[in-house]
């Protein structure tokens, strides 16, 4: 007699996992207009951001530099305000990635993979349109670009006139969201907020200045 409620709960959980917990399931697949999101691709060729990182109760801050290099890579370098380098990553065409330098405290596979995925999303990397598709609900269009693990979504209004937010998702639900504010086509955003949804980790970037010329 007591077994039935337990079985019912298990059935409900399984049903939830397979159906309703998929947060994209209710959306309609529509004719692809993925190319329209590329007009929102920011210009990170040469810019520096004041950056704050909050991760599981710890706070870290510094300066994050983006620079487009002659070998067509984009370097992303994070240093403390007082000058000490935290990491130096290179993002190359063809989804290649190089760790030039990372301090021992951050030199962990999971940390580096998470940061790589975050930067890939905001730099519009790996946005080949071959397997891309669009989903829509009543208001928004989710321009989906499947990745090796999961999907990157660039979410716009129905007319694709405004980039509302960016999302990295597993196959069923979002795991990270980013918002980029204060920029026009061909520029770098004034503010970027990256927020992970599955654990307490956020990165906040505020543009401070173009880099001084040499």
């Amino acid at each position, binding site marked *: 007699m007591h077994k039935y409620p337990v079985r019912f709960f298990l059935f409900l959980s399984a049903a939830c996992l397979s159906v309703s917990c998929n947060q994209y399931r209710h959306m309609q697949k529509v004719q692809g207009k993925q190319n329209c999101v590329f007009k929102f691709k920011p210009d990170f060729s040469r810019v520096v951001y*004041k950056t*704050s990182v909050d991760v599981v109760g710890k*706070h870290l801050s510094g*300066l994050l530099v983006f620079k487009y290099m002659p070998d067509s890579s984009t370097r992303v*370098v994070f*240093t403390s305000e007082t*000058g000490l380098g935290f990491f*130096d990553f290179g993002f190359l065409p063809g989804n290649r990635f190089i760790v030039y330098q990372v301090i021992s405290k951050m030199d962990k596979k999971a940390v580096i993979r998470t940061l790589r995925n975050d930067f890939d999303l905001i730099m519009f990397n790996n946005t080949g349109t071959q397997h891309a598709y669009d989903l829509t609900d009543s208001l928004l269009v989710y321009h989906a670009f499947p990745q090796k693990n999961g999907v990157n979504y660039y979410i716009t209004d129905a007319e694709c006139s405004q980039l509302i937010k960016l999302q990295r998702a597993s196959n069923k639900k979002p795991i990270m969201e980013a918002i980029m504010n204060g920029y026009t086509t061909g520029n770098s955003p004034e503010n970027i907020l990256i927020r992970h949804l599955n654990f307490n980790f956020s990165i906040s970037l505020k543009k401070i200045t173009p*880099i001084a010329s040499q």
Partner: protein
Amino acid sequence: MPRKSSLFILLFVFFSAKAQHAGYVLISKPESFRNSFSNATAVTQSIQSEFNQEKYLSMLSEKINSSGKFWYKKKSQLRIEYVRPFSYLVIINEGKIFIKDGEKESKISTGSNKILQQVNRMLLDCVSGNMLESPDFQSRVFESREAWLVELTPVTRNLKKLYKNINIVIDKSDFTANTIEMIELSGDKTSIHFKNKVLNAQIPSSIFSIP
């Protein structure tokens, strides 16, 4: 033949020292510098100054400039306040560190973190003039007409992972640091240039108070 070898070694030492720090010559017997420096720093109770900082990213050939104000009070009180192009404050006071990054405030006890303890000691030693006695570094002293240059090479494991060298340029007129240059293993370097220095002014203790 031995005389020729000695001459060659002397010339080699002279030129390699010159090559390391342009315009400076290695002092073979730095004791007199140590004594003069030690006497001068003994009477320095406080320093306040403005600074310009240049972070040079070697691989990117880029430079990031910032500036701010700086206060030091003997023996272990330090306040570094960046005002441009961002706001960032660090106060070190008797083994505690307070950081204000925009609206975010953090307090850290250096005792709980060995790396922080060493970086904290390094900063205070560079400012107070105790770097020559620091167990964390080996030092060499170079000289030009206007300044001394103290080259510090980390010997402790944690600092060796962070810095290749730290060079401090000391003004001959008042034995205070004009420039602190921190060179990382990657070749990136941070140079802090001090200006408008005021020695032994009364600095209110509130400047170093940690809320």
